[in-house]
């Protein structure tokens, strides 16, 4: 009796290769941070192994998908898997947003003496709780050097607004691509996909420029809680945009190979949803970091 109802893959080496790659990367990174000379090359080696693993593993899955090995059940499994993976990403971002809200609503006002913390201001004379927090307690205390103090804030109507417009447009273009795919308009689909990727890459370019400006104006990772939350949230988001752009490129390649049709295109849906998700995270960032 064969497993006609189910699909079970053969044994595979890709996972253990992935584990070797990811732990090599981490060991390299940790050593790099401790200024060990072989840290960077080891990390590079690890990343290479990871890329090799992804090509191999995803290649296998794509081949199996094209050859019609997968049935409805496998398709549903992929949908569940992707959805809950994304949910775990949401919770990852939630931790960083949580840190931002905690700092703004609780810890900074408390440092300024709010609620039951009437003695805290005694520790740092002259400290005023503001948001964005420019004069950190460490910068005005006796040592006065803990977290650098003077920086100019990024102008909301400069690059951040442009970037928001860019990323939102990429959300619009991918919606049009989605529409074209569903209607089976191949050329329009490819054009909209290229536009989406281009907008994403442009966004990343501007983001790097913005970091350059911010750094030049003194806003650094070491500028206290404002710099910390600013760089970690935007940096982590930028990392996700990078991953999303790579995934979109792979999808574009697969579109040109003719892997999808108007009915069967889960990979596209998954990546499109991911892109929308990254877009919404940015909108949240834009509103909470720059506006409210």
């Amino acid at each position: 009796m064969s497993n006609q109802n189910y699909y079970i893959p053969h044994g595979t080496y890709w996972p253990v290769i992935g584990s070797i790659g990811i732990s090599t990367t981490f060991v390299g990174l940790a050593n790099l941070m401790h200024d060990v000379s072989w840290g960077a090359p080891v990390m590079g080696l690890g990343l290479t192994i990871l890329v090799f693993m992804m090509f191999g593993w995803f290649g296998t899955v794509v081949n199996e998908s094209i050859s019609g090995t997968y049935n409805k059940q496998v398709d549903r499994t992929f949908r569940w898997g992707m959805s809950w993976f994304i949910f775990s990403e949401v919770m990852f971002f939630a931790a960083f947003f949580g840190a931002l809200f905690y700092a703004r609503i609780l810890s900074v006002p408390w440092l300024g003496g709010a609620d039951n913390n009437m003695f805290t201001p005694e520790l740092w004379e002259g400290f005023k709780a503001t948001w964005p927090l420019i004069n950190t307690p460490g910068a005005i205390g006796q040592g006065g050097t803990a977290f650098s103090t003077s920086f100019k804030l990024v102008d909301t109507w400069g690059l951040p607004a442009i970037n928001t417009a860019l990323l939102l447009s990429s959300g619009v273009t991918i919606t049009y691509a989605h529409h074209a795919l569903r209607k089976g308009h191949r050329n329009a689909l490819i054009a909209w996909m290229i536009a989406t990727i281009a907008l994403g890459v442009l966004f990343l370019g501007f983001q790097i420029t913005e970091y350059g400006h911010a750094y030049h104006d003194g806003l650094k990772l070491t500028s206290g809680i404002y710099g910390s939350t600013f760089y970690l949230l935007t940096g982590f988001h930028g990392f996700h945009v990078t991953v999303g752009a790579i995934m979109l490129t792979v999808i574009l390649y697969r579109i040109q190979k003719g892997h999808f049709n108007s009915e069967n295109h889960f990979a596209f849906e998954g990546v499109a949803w991911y892109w929308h998700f990254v877009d919404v995270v940015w909108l949240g960032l834009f509103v909470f970091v720059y506006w409210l």
Partner: protein
Amino acid sequence: MDIIVIAIIIVILFSLGSALVGMLRGGKKGSDKMFKSLRARISLSVFLFVFLMFASFMGWIEPNNVLPTQ
């Protein structure tokens, strides 16, 4: 004003989640639901951005990089 912005964000998150449910369901119906929800979410996002610009222009809201005068 803040409340309105946050409310729009919540609606956006809701439609994004609804698209996820559509993707999860799969098939023709799920695919339709997903597409419609995503279209709703991008329209709302663009609206929010335009609304922020307009509100700022009208002076209803200020970016938070203007430090409170002390």
